[in-house]
């Protein structure tokens, strides 16, 4: 053990405001995952209906019922995820989470407000998302309305230790992952 002989590098951004790339990737994963689940559910319903009634059911994007169901499903997916744990599936993958502006855990009220305000950020060519880039706390329009921020939540110190451990194993010769100061 060497005590304090080397310069200590910061290895974690845990608790820092999350940036645009992490948030966009998380959102892309969420849209893909939630759409896939919705499509699977529709396919399942079609199968059950065809088995029970003997008629084939097809769903169209233009169908208003499908559109309403999709919007309701997206609302439930994002709203419930943010209310229950502060993160959706995509956010969990990227290691970010929603918290209140002061850093305390977001409650159901914040989650519902954020979900309702989320579509507003798409208006005017997505101008509401510009805040993620230029606002000092990386807050989009829906964050400002709901009183929330998005922060890095994954334990980068543990990740770094895992990386060092892999490097320490005999025969290991992998390069250091990019981002020496992971979230």
């Amino acid at each position, binding site marked *: 053990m060497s005590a304090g002989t080397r310069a200590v590098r910061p290895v974690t951004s845990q*608790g820092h405001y999350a940036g645009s790339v*992490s948030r966009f990737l998380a959102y892309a994963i969420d849209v893909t995952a939630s759409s896939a689940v919705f499509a699977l559910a529709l396919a399942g319903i079609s199968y059950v209906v065809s088995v029970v009634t003997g008629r084939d059911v097809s769903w169209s994007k233009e169908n208003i019922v499908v559109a309403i169901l999709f919007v309701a499903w997206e609302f439930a997916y994002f709203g419930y995820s943010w209310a229950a744990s502060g993160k959706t599936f995509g956010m969990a993958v990227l290691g970010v989470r929603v918290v209140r502006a002061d850093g*305390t855990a977001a409650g159901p009220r914040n989650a519902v407000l954020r979900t309702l305000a989320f579509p507003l950020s798409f208006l005017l060519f997505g101008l509401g998302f510009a805040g993620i880039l230029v606002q000092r706390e990386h807050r989009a329009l829906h964050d400002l309305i709901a009183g929330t921020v998005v922060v890095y939540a994954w334990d980068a110190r543990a*990740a770094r230790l*895992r990386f060092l451990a892999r490097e320490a*194993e005999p025969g290991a010769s992998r390069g250091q992952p990019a*981002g020496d100061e992971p979230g």
Partner: protein
Amino acid sequence: MSDPFEALAQRVAERVLDLIVSALDVNALLDRVDMNALVGRADVNALLDRVDVPALLERADVNEVLDRVDVGALLDRVNVNDLVRRVDVDALVEQTDVGAVIARSSGGAASEALDAARSQAVGLDQFIDRWVQRGLRRKHPAPAGPPALRSGRTGR
């Protein structure tokens, strides 16, 4: 002087000394001594140079000394957090088998890929943020995170 007189003088002197010493209150005498001034005048280093420490340690019963130590009270006075902060955990993992244990217990292809993807994303976040801050010509750095999380804690 002849021998009988010398022997008598010796006995008288010893007797007088005995009487004086028995009459003296040594504790009262020591109370009058300014120990700090005395110690201040002593060359402790020179004194320690004369001490044969290995020989002294050989004569000491270390186990008995340790038995007298109140380890609990000693640990209460130690700032463990400060002690842990001084430990170079990276070096510890790199140089010992602890690393292999961690790798076996928590390292999987999925976690490795996830760590790498997250690290890449954070690296790009920081890269973009640097350029945006430069473009906006902000002189004062933005706060790193919400007040409650600046010490590294997460919200939930």
